[in-house]
C-alpha cells in the first residue's frame, strides 16, 4: 500500500500541476476550460490531471458529454497536500535564516 507522503509534495512540485490544482480549487472545470487558462495544450492538461487523479487530489465526474474535474471532495488528501507545501516552503526559508543568523550570538553572557 502506498501513502501520499513524499508523493503529495511531488504532485504539486510541478508548476503547471500546481496551477491546475489552484484553478480546480476555485471551480470544477473541464479539460478545455483548464487549457484555455494555461499556456499548455489540452493533452498536456489531461496528462497532469491523470497524475493528480492517481495521487488522490482530484476526482472527475461525467456530466452528459462533458467530464468535470474537481478537487477530491473528501478533502483529506488535498489538505495534506496543502500542508505539505506549507512545510516544504517553511523549512526552506528556515534554513536560509539559520544560515544567515549571526555566527556568534552573545547569548552566553545572558
Amino acid at each position, binding site marked *: 500500500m502506498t501513502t501520499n507522503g513524499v508523493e503529495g509534495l511531488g504532485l504539486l512540485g510541478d508548476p503547471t500541476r500546481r496551477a491546475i490544482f*489552484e484553478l480546480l480549487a476555485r471551480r470544477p472545470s473541464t479539460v478545455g476550460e483548464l487549457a484555455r487558462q494555461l499556456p499548455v495544450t489540452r493533452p498536456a492538461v489531461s496528462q497532469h490531471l491523470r497524475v493528480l487523479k492517481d495521487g488522490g487530489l482530484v476526482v472527475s465526474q461525467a456530466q452528459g458529454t462533458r467530464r468535470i474535474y474537481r478537487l477530491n471532495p473528501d478533502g483529506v488528501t488535498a489538505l495534506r497536500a496543502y500542508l505539505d507545501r506549507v512545510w516544504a516552503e517553511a523549512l526552506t526559508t528556515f534554513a536560509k535564516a539559520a544560515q544567515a543568523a549571526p555566527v556568534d550570538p552573545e547569548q552566553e553572557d545572558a
Partner: protein
Amino acid sequence: MTSTTIPPLTGTITVDAPIERAFRVFTDAFGSWWPAEYHIGQADMATAILEPREGGRWYEQGVDGSECDWGRVLAWEPPHRLIVTWQINGQWQYDPDPAHASEIEIRFAADGPDRTTVTLEHRHLERLVDGQALRDGITGGGGWPSLLELFAKAATNQT
C-alpha cells in the same frame, strides 16, 4: 462517520549552522523566517511568536496589533526537540479544543560543529478534519476557499 487516519507529513532539511543556532532561529526568531502569507488573521501578519517554554503560546500578531493563536508548546527541550500543536483546521481557523489538535515534532541533530539536520513530523492530521465539516466546506463553499486562496497565493509566489 468514522474518522480517517491521515499519514503524517515529514520533512528534513540540513542547515550549515550549529545546533544551538538552528534551534534558536527556529524558535526565538520564528517570525523572521515563517512565510508571511501563511497566516489566519484578518489583518496582514506582522510577526509570529513561539513562546520559549512548555505550555507557551504559538500565535501570530497582525499589523493592527490583533493576535490569533495557532497552537501551544507541548515539549520544550532545547536544542534537541520541540513539539507544538497545530490547531488550525480545514476552515483555516484556530480550534481551541485539544482533541482537535494536530502535533508537530521538530528534532535537531548535530551533524558536526556547524551542521544540523532538522526533522519535522506533522502528525494526527485526522484530528484537524471533521470529515463531514470538511466535505460540506469543500462542496458548499465553507471555509475552504480561503485556505485554497492562501494556497493559490503561495503557489503564485513560487518562482
